[in-house]
């Protein structure tokens, strides 16, 4: 089972397994990991599994939550990451966190349809429900409205937060860009984010962006909490509900 290890000056203070419930981290004694330091907020951060991925979420703390060296609002965690809260850090052991493997739903024995056809609303609803019943994956298909957001962590931009409303979001200095970069020598079009049916993909422009510290080699699907760095700007991709 994945676990978190609270460390202070390289000494192990406490180990906490990560189960179905979020691990609460903060100064007040009702937390799962209590960090008794004035720099730590009462309800500071939480770590939990979201769709098979380990996520840390800052709870609006005063002094912030850092993953490795980066301040984050929400970020996916990987094995060996360190979450820094004040002078303490929490080591992430995610080796045992292999997400549940899904059995690909058996192909419904649907009739082969060669001609294009349109479904009316009622048939459509029934078919979607049938299709939904085919796969367990529906448990992630919630009806809650998800708002994909770019939160600027560092670098000069015309706003600190952008809600992605268009199919194509451009990051650059150009007047046509959605996320406008400020400052000299910034490219007109540094990178772009494309909404596809299965999610959001970041692609290169005049620069090659890095996602979670790794330069992308082609359009790369973004996950909740991912860090994107391009043209001197660091942003978090966050899906709010």
């Amino acid at each position, binding site marked *: 089972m994945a676990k978190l290890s609270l460390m202070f000056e390289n000494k192990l203070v406490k180990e906490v397994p990560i189960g179905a419930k979020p691990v609460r981290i903060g100064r007040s004694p009702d937390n799962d990991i209590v960090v008794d330091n004035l720099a730590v907020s009462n309800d500071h951060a939480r770590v939990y599994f979201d769709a098979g991925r380990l996520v840390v979420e800052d709870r609006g703390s005063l002094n912030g939550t850092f993953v490795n060296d980066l301040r984050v609002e929400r970020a996916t965690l990987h094995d060996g990451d360190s979450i820094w809260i004040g002078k303490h850090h929490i080591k992430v052991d995610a080796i045992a966190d292999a997400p549940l493997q899904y059995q*690909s*739903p058996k*192909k419904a024995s*649907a*009739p*082969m*349809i*060669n*001609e*294009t*056809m*349109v*479904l*009316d609303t009622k048939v*459509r609803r029934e*078919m*979607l429900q049938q*299709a*939904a019943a*085919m*796969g367990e*994956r*529906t448990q*992630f*298909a919630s009806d809650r409205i998800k708002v994909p957001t770019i939160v600027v962590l560092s670098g000069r931009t015309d706003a600190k937060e952008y809600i992605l409303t*268009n*199919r*194509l979001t*451009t990051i650059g200095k*150009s*007047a*046509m*860009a*959605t996320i406008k970069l400020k400052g000299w020598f910034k490219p*007109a*079009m540094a990178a*772009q984010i*494309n*909404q*596809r*049916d*299965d999610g959001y*993909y970041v*692609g*290169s*422009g*005049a620069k090659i962006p890095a996602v979670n510290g790794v330069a992308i080699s*082609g*359009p790369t699907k973004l996950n909740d909490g991912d860090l994107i760095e391009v043209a001197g700007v660091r942003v978090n991709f966050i899906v709010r509900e």
Partner: protein
Amino acid sequence: MQVASGGATDVGMVRTNNEDSYRIMGALNLFVLADGMGGEAHGEVASSLAVETVVKHCLEGQQNPNAPLSGEEKPGLTEKSRRLASAVHLANQEVFASASQNAEQRGMGATLTAAWIDDVNLSVAHVGDSRVYLLRTGVLQQLTSDHSLVAEQVRRGILTASEAESSTMQNVLLRALGTQPEVEADIEQVGLFPNDVLLICSDGLTRMVTEPEIAGALQSEPDPQKAAEKLVKLANEGGGVDNVTAIVVSLKPEAKGWFSWLRSGANKSVGGNGTAGGH
């Protein structure tokens, strides 16, 4: 922006009639594509009626900006987007009326995808599973989402994108033109950059040719007409199970505008330095 375009269509290797229709209105920088359905020759009737209605309504709007709009207006749209939305609304009425009045046309319909370029602003109106792609700095990006059952299942997390590609249900649309009295069109507004390349295509292309192959063809063939022909050829080589249509639009910086930009840029920086020196 300098706009150059080309288009090609083919019946494919399996079908006997071509139900795709498209129009390139060079003077307006308007590009319209429809993929008809409904057996016999009625798919062709639906798709050409849809394309003609859109072209005519946009031409009217161009000549008289006060020409009445059809359908409900959405907020936050440019004039061209509003006109396109109105054109799709009208085209739906036309196809639906024709299908209800002529018994042999019952059940006919069409996809409709229209792109209108106004200098650096692109408006897209879309119903169905034809697509608009934008190739920019070598990255192929999809500007429309398919109104198909499998695409909806991908959006809901029921299918993965690759499962959708091998699904037997790919032909099932959730939205099309002319099958209901009212239809909701997706409207997308995108800012354009020099050297952007647009592709508007029917599903006969996207089912036969992978996106990397499409991107490669668009990059290797700078002439839009030849690029469109090449894509159609690729679709036929891949099996050509459906009618295939491709419209390719390439955008280049205005040659004249480039030099005037240089001059105004020079003037600006002189002015900027003067101000800085004064402080």
